């Protein structure tokens, strides 16, 4: 080979090496490649602290007065919610001298959050504090992603002031891994003007299953061809488990035996609940996906009764202020059990966090009376402190007296490692039932058998 060829090769090799080195170089001037904000949709450092410095401090794991930065992730839902958390983090930073908070806003969908958390877990950038949905207590709790908060809770002087349900929901297999702070009950919401139009008393919403069905019949409006113009009650078709689980539980079904960890929804109670909901659906419901809140018929005036979260009600009233006096709220329906569906968000600490003490300090700040009341005032999030109950009801008796009952009697998604798989089968059974593809009993039995079979074979 000639000298020229070798020289050419050497130059090419150098160029290639430079190219690869450039590609691999860290884009961050401080070299903080582990920053969880690197790939986040919307991130803000409340105090503007350098992520590199923070991580360097974090690695030392010293609960001292040296400046440290904790990473806090929460699911976004609206600009108001995001603003609240970012401001709260700033207030926390101002309240003491050494802990900074790196705030990251996540997408609101559980599946999108799962994707983010999976990536964070695999890259070693799991957040210190994470605002988790209730479903994560089982699905991600089983993967040991959350730290045991038992020790912190035992020493926390305010523990006795927190509603028991907010603490119980954060337990997985007896271990406390989350502290509930954001109840999201599904409240019966109805249009008073439609009630009047149908000849019903607008101040008397349905109080049990029979009344709901009777009212729904009277409230359903059809055109000359028999097409539904307005549904009596919203009965979702897809992803509707928060909706129908409330009916299953009200009728006495345990849905899942959480102690034994086995499905228990193919029972008489669930069958009756599904048959009842099938009747409601067949009255003339407008099918929609329960997870797509913007498609709820009630929001566009196409139904008279619906189940909505406080946030959805608040957004509706903000978009259509003229509805303020036309909307009423119904109680938890009476049946065998006094129970409603209440979704929850909980504060958790990542099991890999090296700043657990600082993270707990942030959680206790966020659980303080002051912050809880701010959350109610700014975001209409119901309170979970017993000492705030009277103040909460007095602030808006019309809705809050109803709301507090929903929160107290609220039960969320079953906390099991297989909740996602359970969802798949129960949604199928529900869809089969309400569309009359199968009788309710058969749909439930088939779903339970298939789930048990899957849990045995696919591990």
């Amino acid at each position, binding site marked *: 080979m000639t000298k020229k060829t070798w020289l050419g*090769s050497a130059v090419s090799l150098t160029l290639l090496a430079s190219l690869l080195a450039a590609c691999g170089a860290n884009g961050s001037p401080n070299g903080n490649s582990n920053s969880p904000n690197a790939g986040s949709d919307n991130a803000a450092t409340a105090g503007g602290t350098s992520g590199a410095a923070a991580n360097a401090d974090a690695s030392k794991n010293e609960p001292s007065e040296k400046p440290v930065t904790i990473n806090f992730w929460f699911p976004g839902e609206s600009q108001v919610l995001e603003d609240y958390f970012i401001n709260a983090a700033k207030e926390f930073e101002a309240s003491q001298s050494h802990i900074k908070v790196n705030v990251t806003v996540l997408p609101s969908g559980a599946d999108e959050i799962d994707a983010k958390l999976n990536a964070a877990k695999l890259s070693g950038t799991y957040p210190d504090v994470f605002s988790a949905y209730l479903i994560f207590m089982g699905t991600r709790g089983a993967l040991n992603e959350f730290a045991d908060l038992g020790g912190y809770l035992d020493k926390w002087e305010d523990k006795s002031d927190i509603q028991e349900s907010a603490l119980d929901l954060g337990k997985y297999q007896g271990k406390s891994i989350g502290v509930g702070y954001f109840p999201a009950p599904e409240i019966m919401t109805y249009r008073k003007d439609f009630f009047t139009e149908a000849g019903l008393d607008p101040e008397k919403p349905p109080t049990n299953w029979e009344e709901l069905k009777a009212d729904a019949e009277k409230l359903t409006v059809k055109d000359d061809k028999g097409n539904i113009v307005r549904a009596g009650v919203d009965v979702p078709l897809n992803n509707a488990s928060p909706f129908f689980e409330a009916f299953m539980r009200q009728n006495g079904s345990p849905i899942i035996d959480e102690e034994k960890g086995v499905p228990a929804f193919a029972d008489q109670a669930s069958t009756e609940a599904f048959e009842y909901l099938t009747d409601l659906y067949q009255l003339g419901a407008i099918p929609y996906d329960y997870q797509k809140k913007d498609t709820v018929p009630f929001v566009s005036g196409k139904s008279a009764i619906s189940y909505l979260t406080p946030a959805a009600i608040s957004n509706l009233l903000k978009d259509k202020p003229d509805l303020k006096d036309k909307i009423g709220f119904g109680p938890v329906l009476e049946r065998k059990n006094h129970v409603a569906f209440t979704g929850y968000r909980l504060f958790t600490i990542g099991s890999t966090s090296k700043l657990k003490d600082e993270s707990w300090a942030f959680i206790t700040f966020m659980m303080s009376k002051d912050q809880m009341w701010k959350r109610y005032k700014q975001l209409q999030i119901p309170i979970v402190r017993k000492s705030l109950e009277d103040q909460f009801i007095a602030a808006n008796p019309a809705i809050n007296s109803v709301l507090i009952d929903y929160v107290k009697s609220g039960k969320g998604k079953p906390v099991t490692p297989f909740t996602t798989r359970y969802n798949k089968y129960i949604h199928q059974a529900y869809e089969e039932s309400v569309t009359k593809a199968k009788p309710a009993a058969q749909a439930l039995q088939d779903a339970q058998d298939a789930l048990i*079979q899957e849990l045995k074979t696919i591990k």
Partner: protein
Amino acid sequence: MERAADIDIPAVRSAGAEAVVRRRKRRLDADPIGYLLILPFYLFLLLFVLAPIGYNLFLSFTNYNLDTMHGVGINNYKALFYDRFFGIALKNTAIYAFFTLVLTVAFGQILAVFLNYKWGGIKWVRMSFFSPYVISMVAASMIWLWIYEPSHGVANTLLEAIGLNKVQWLQDTKWAMPAVIFTGFWKFLGYNVVIFLAGLQGISRDLYEAAAVDGAGGFRQYLKITIPQLMPVTFFLIVTGLINNFNVFEQIQIMTGGGPLNSTTTLVHQIYNRAFQEFLIGYAAAMSIVLLFLVALLTAANFWYGSRSHES
């Protein structure tokens, strides 16, 4: 002549191996810069394609769940036979792939023939057919979600205008898959049209003139000249379309979430759910290996059929 028994086989093998090494060295010496310049591509292929496939194959024999990992032999593959969703997804994927492919290739070719004529504003017409292809599938799915909306959607408004009843496009098991297929057809038709147009413009005019002299009409020319001359292009579109259609995911995830009653769930949708919603990474890896072999098999069958057609 030397007898076979007298030949020193190890020595011959050694000499053969040395010859191979010498030949390789000669090739490297002949053009080291060339090899060096293609090195990044091979490094990329190794790091980002072959290594992940190998790792995925390894994972398919484990029960990895993002927390723990144990070997489970071929249990994941055995479990596929008991997984009703896998069977449904396989069937749905085949239906989606078949209909989307047939529609986009058939209509793509016919449209390309019409768009190959020179008439006023033809560039704009061509561009309008191609424009859906450059839109992201996520955006396109959102648009079609709005079109298929049951109470106020454009599709049902049109049906009502001509006196027909509304259809629950994405909520009815009968209509959900056709609705998703139509979205795919709308999205990919333009790409096929453009490729067919390029193929058409490569066909010599002499062939058509000769056929016309022999008395062949337009339809006969299309059958006897256009279709055979477009065979390589058609073959390319079938192979790439098949691979794309087997990987259908975004529109399913956004428009139907696999429902109603799993009538639109597909293989990739199931892989995603199993891996990232249910944390059954090992099992999902087994599913993706099956998908890989399925696509490879179909592609190989296409190539075999293509080469046979070419020879004949």
